[in-house]
């Protein structure tokens, strides 16, 4: 199944989210693809609070088998999480484990009023009861394949399918 154009999905997401957000809504992008997407959404939605970013490396559930990733980026949440109206932003929603880790990490900053999820693509294959409130598109790819968001030098976003290395 050919992948949809990422730029069109971004536009679609913005339209879905605009009526559902207020000036107080805060966005948190999940590294790395989720941050690129969140930057675009944040700009388009004109939110008052600055953008937050989160790296879930310290909260992953596969630390015991995979070890610590060498490319951990710092999480930055430059606003008050307590009582906030949070939207987590990720590029690809798949098993739901990244979102679970992000929620756990978020709650270590404080108790938000509510948390919703915006995902550019949902490829199904959920292993946890996680749903996105805002989705660009549903796609279907094989089990040995990976959907990746790419950012060109001029900032244009695009989607790519690659085979997963190893098992």
């Amino acid at each position, binding site marked *: 199944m050919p992948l949809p154009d990422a730029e069109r999905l971004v536009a679609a997401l913005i339209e879905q989210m605009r009526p559902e957000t207020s000036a107080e809504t805060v966005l948190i992008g999940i590294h790395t693809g989720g941050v690129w997407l969140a930057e675009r959404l944040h700009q388009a939605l004109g939110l008052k609070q600055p953008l937050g970013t989160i790296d879930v490396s310290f909260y992953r559930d596969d630390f015991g088998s995979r070890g*610590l990733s*060498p490319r951990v980026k*710092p999480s930055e949440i430059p606003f008050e999480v307590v009582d906030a109206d949070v939207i987590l932003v990720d590029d690809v929603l798949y098993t739901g484990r990244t979102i679970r880790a992000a929620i756990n*990490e978020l709650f*270590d900053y404080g108790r938000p009023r509510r948390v919703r999820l915006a995902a550019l693509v949902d490829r199904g294959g959920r292993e946890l009861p996680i749903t996105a409130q805002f989705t660009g598109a549903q796609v279907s790819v094989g089990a040995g394949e990976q959907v990746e968001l790419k950012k060109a030098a001029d900032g244009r976003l695009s989607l790519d399918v690659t085979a997963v290395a190893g098992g």
Partner: protein
Amino acid sequence: MMAYNPQLNANGELKHLLTIEGLPREILLNILDTAHSFLSVAEREIKKVPLLRGKSVFNLFFESSTRTRTTFEIAAKRLSADVINLNVGTSSQSKGETLLDTVANLSAMHADMFVVRHSQSGAAHLIARHVAPYIHVINAGDGRHAHPTQGLLDMFTIRHYKKDFSTLRVAIVGDVLHSRVARSQIHALTTLGVPEVRVIGPRTLLPANVAELGVHVYHDMAQGLKDADVVIMLRLQNERMNGALLPSAQEFFKNYGLTAEKLALARPDAIVMHPGPMNRGVEIESSVADGRQSVILPQVTFGIAVRMAVMSIVVGNT
């Protein structure tokens, strides 16, 4: 003769941290980079991440040290580990359980990690050789041999303030002969590509073959500090006066103490470091220890992040 590295697993990943000597550059840089991410954890409301949740870290201190033990404890707890502190006391003359028996008993209590400090060089290596495969050993200081987490946090500090290792002149001043910190620093500096590492001290306090470690030897502090970018002062133990190594602390301060005048010989933006605890008036003058070039307090903060990094990395490598 051993052809393998007892610190690395079959995939060349860090399994134990026993000494900086023999570790490739990439592993050292990985630890520094990971430590950087842990710095921000300390600034949050909840200063914890769940990486070591459910793991038991045993602080096995055969040589007592409240400072070092506390920073390891804080680091482990910030990783959500359970920490058990054991002060086994000095071992040399005491009859009782052998070192290895102690370790075996603790392993039976499902330890996941031993943080070990001992007065004898090689103690951490001995323990690492005898623990079950899933247990990780971190050397918190063994005799005069190594204090790798201190060496790493010192490198982190240098990188934080100086950015690029490849252009630095670093001077280490004081009792290098008895210092595990100095040995670890020297290995780290040379591995990370610092072009000029200097040791400064009287002949009685420098090991006979220290130049073979890749350092320049100075007995004149003024010459040794000239144009230095980093000045690391080592602690002088009181016992050194007893073994006819030095006449007095005063004379040591006169020749090798860091005063403001001597510091002025280094570069104006040179940083001053000390592994602690400091002997004010022996190694270092208070005005320098508390002065604008001193980074001694930040070293402590960095120490927690570096230890968090080391613990997470080894636990993630089976």
